[in-house]
């Protein structure tokens, strides 16, 4: 895959001031009385790998659909490649790669035919795009399967094919809506490797996911969404430092014990979830004394992760 991204792969340097590839200002999306996205502002710069995290119904998929023009914003401006999404979707979509949440491949056709039909929608035909399709199938380790009908592919193969399909038109930005949901760890790691390789070649990515590990592995910056808002944004490590500190003590504690801890150590940031109590601190030393006093077999002192930030900000209750 030496030369997958001809137009994006410059000599490793970006111009000093590059315009954002995607720019949202006050973007609102309403479906009747339901407000799915409620005033989003963000920018995606060239070569970003931006993640959008959020509980179900936070508005992630709606946002992705607005970017690839399958939904229209109700208010605000959303520009992709400098083009307002309601004005010229065709020009935007020609330069985007889309991996939707659902594998919408043509089930009756073979792997190869799926790609050959799809590239026609972009007005692409002939040896050049066939060569590219072959490279992409190699890249996604699907070349051996090129004649297999889609319904006989495994879930992981379908997903890899959808990603390959999204790259056919040599996009500048790729939108990934939950690219690895429901896949086994081997396939997930394969997909992550490939996406990082593409990022290193200069591609820009937008990702939604429920896997914090995925967000941490892939994304340079994260947006945590809830109820249609971005409630926190930044680099993963900065988010961890800012919102939870780098260590957490996770313990089983009844309200009585919690009251006692609160009384004796009021300066720790705390969160309760059912039986469990979470105490956050910037260092493990700060938490160590508590382990010896209140600790039990269920206590764990561990480094924090984006997941702790996520659960702290969006709450630990289940969303339906």
């Amino acid at each position, binding site marked *: 895959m030496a030369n997958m991204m001809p137009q994006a792969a410059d000599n490793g340097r970006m111009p000093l001031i590059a315009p954002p590839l995607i720019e949202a200002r006050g973007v609102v999306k309403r479906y009747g009385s339901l407000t799915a996205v409620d005033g989003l502002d963000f920018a995606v710069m060239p070569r970003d790998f931006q993640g959008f995290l959020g509980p179900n119904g936070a508005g992630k998929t709606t946002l992705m659909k607005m970017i690839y023009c399958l939904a229209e914003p109700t208010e605000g401006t959303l520009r992709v490649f400098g083009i*307002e999404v309601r004005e010229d979707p*065709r*020009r935007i979509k020609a330069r985007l790669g889309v991996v*939707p949440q659902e594998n*919408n491949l043509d089930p009756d*056709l073979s792997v190869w035919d799926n790609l050959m039909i799809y590239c026609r929608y972009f007005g692409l035909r002939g040896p050049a795009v066939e060569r590219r399709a072959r490279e992409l199938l190699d890249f996604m380790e699907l070349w051996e399967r090129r004649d297999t009908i889609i319904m006989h592919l495994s879930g992981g193969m379908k997903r890899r094919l959808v990603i390959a399909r999204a790259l056919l038109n040599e996009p500048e930005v790729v939108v990934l809506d939950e690219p690895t949901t429901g896949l086994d760890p081997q396939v997930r790691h394969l997909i992550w490797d490939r996406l990082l390789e593409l990022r290193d070649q200069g591609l820009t990515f937008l990702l939604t996911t429920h896997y914090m590990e995925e967000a941490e592995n892939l994304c340079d910056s994260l947006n945590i969404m809830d109820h249609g808002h971005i409630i926190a944004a930044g680099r993963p490590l900065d988010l961890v430092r800012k919102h939870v500190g780098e260590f957490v003590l996770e313990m089983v504690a009844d309200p009585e014990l919690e009251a006692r801890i609160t009384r004796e150590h009021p300066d720790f940031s705390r969160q309760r979830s059912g039986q469990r109590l979470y105490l956050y601190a910037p260092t493990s030393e700060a938490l160590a004394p508590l382990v010896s006093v209140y600790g039990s077999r269920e206590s764990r002192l561990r480094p924090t992760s984006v997941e702790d930030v996520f659960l702290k900000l969006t709450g630990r209750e289940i969303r339906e």
Partner: protein
Amino acid sequence: MTSSATPPHPSWPVPPPPAPPEREPAEERAAVEFALRPPRGLTAVGRRFLQVWYRDAYVFRRLWKTNLLPPLIEPYLYLLALGLGVGFYISTIDGVDYLSFVAPGILVTTSILQATFECTYGSYFRMAFQSTFDAIVATPVNPEEVSLGEICWGATRSLINAGALTVTLVILGRVPLLWIPVILALQFVAGLHFGALSLLITSRVRQTEYFNFFLSGVVFPVQMLTGAFFPLSRIPDILQPVAWAVPLTSMIDLTRGIMLDRLDWTALPQLAYVLATTVLFAELALRSMRRRLIA
């Protein structure tokens, strides 16, 4: 603003509140943004609709044996049952033998049913169960082009089956050879008409059960009113205007006029009516489908 809101003395006349702005700020902003709103309906269609047609044709070609044979056999059964079975008991009808009379009716109903099935169950299956339309609309193809591609593919199915049936009718000596291209063109238009109407329905339904209502509640009963199987003169006077209001009646009358060599001046307004309603249904289907696909 703030000082005038609280008058200095209660007895002073309170100035009327400022008139509300004509439009809310959000609407104002929207009006500016939408200055360049892209066209809608048929005017939004570019040549990419052909790629949607190609996709359907490609899948059809792969599965042609199961797709093609049953609908091909059905009209022959009608031809046998009506033309030879019922026809045996009828010496002449409307001045000709029954097979000659009923052949155009069977031809047109075959055409419209093909497009109707394709653009109801077929399109709905692609749209709702396979998310094919969503996949296509995420590319530079727009919803209007997807819709027109589907309608044209429905009409192509009509043309395929009408073509096969026409070969048989030629062998039976019921078709003037020189007029075959015109007859087939008419079948294609009939396919476009019913494809557009069907896709309009498809764009509005949430379950396939509604198609049963459309087919057994509208298409099949209306067929009985349109002179496909017996002359319209046998219909009660009160139903005559209803029958002629249905464009299908004109499609059958035109096809019969050609096949029995009795075209007259009424063909022109009938053709215009068929074409106009086809364009109307297509425009409505394209607009409705956009609303369905772009949330």
